[in-house]
């Protein structure tokens, strides 16, 4: 009997792995490992995300510790609150026309 079939059914927590490529840079999500505890998670994450020089540091976070926020009510189209949601171009043109300083073309 092969050793893996039964063993692979064991369900372990998922650890989200964040890696820092260089000191001072933000940690970015790299992927995840499935591991029974933090020590296994560390060893496996080191192998997969760390020790070929691709990271200087890792964060391991149990997925359960992450608060998931994904419901967004945007009923009134308030996207102008975002810098990229507010187009100034058209309004600028109108303002210039009102002031009689519209550029030719």
């Amino acid at each position, binding site marked *: 009997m092969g050793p*893996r079939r039964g*063993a*692979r059914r064991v369900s372990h927590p998922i650890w989200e792995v964040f890696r820092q490529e260089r000191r001072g840079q933000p940690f970015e999500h790299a992927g995840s490992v499935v591991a029974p505890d933090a020590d296994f998670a560390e*060893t*496996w994450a080191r*192998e*997969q995300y760390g*020790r070929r020089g691709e990271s200087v540091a890792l964060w391991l976070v149990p997925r359960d510790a992450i608060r998931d926020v994904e419901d967004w009510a945007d009923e009134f189209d308030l996207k102008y609150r975002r810098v990229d949601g507010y187009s100034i171009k058209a309004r600028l043109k109108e303002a210039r026309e009102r002031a009689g300083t519209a550029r030719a073309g």
Partner: protein
Amino acid sequence: MNEQALLGLADDELVLGWRDSEWTGIAPLLEEDVAFSSIAQNEIGHARAVYELLVGTEGDADALAFDRRPEEYRCAPLVELRLLEWAHTIARRWLYEVADEIRITAFKDDSDRAVAGLAAKIDREEAYHRMHAEMWHERLREEPRFRAAVEELWPYALGVLPAELRAELVERVGLADAEPVERGTHTDELAPLWEEMTMVRRSAPAGAQW
């Protein structure tokens, strides 16, 4: 340079790397599969570095690695065993890493600077292997299947080290001294492994192109 001892180290790493890579794709957990395969590959890398040191810059490391007859290999019987059963595999990995650390530590003090330097370089990577092995050992040490496997492989583990380094292994593993399965003898499992390991080399003596 203690060439026989270095050849023993290189052959151990090559053969164990080969054996452990037999788990690639079928290890008990996906993450372990990646880690175990990576460690196996490192061991073969260490073997290559030691063969290269032994043959010198003009020599052919592949020839040293693959052109010997099975009986000429200097690997310890421990690494030859085909153990496709996880308790035994991980017991061997742990025993090997404990023994290997003792051996590498001794090589780091070698009067030959090239040997000491390479040993230090190997040791820095072995630190990860030890972390991996210790992790499994911590997890499984009370498991009857694991303990039985450690006890079964113990005489083989003693054979990895020369007599003068065995006392430390006995102390660290915590089992009673036993009659070692000595290096220089081979198990029946080496010959089929040798067939497989040297197949490409023998079929293309001028060198295979990939």
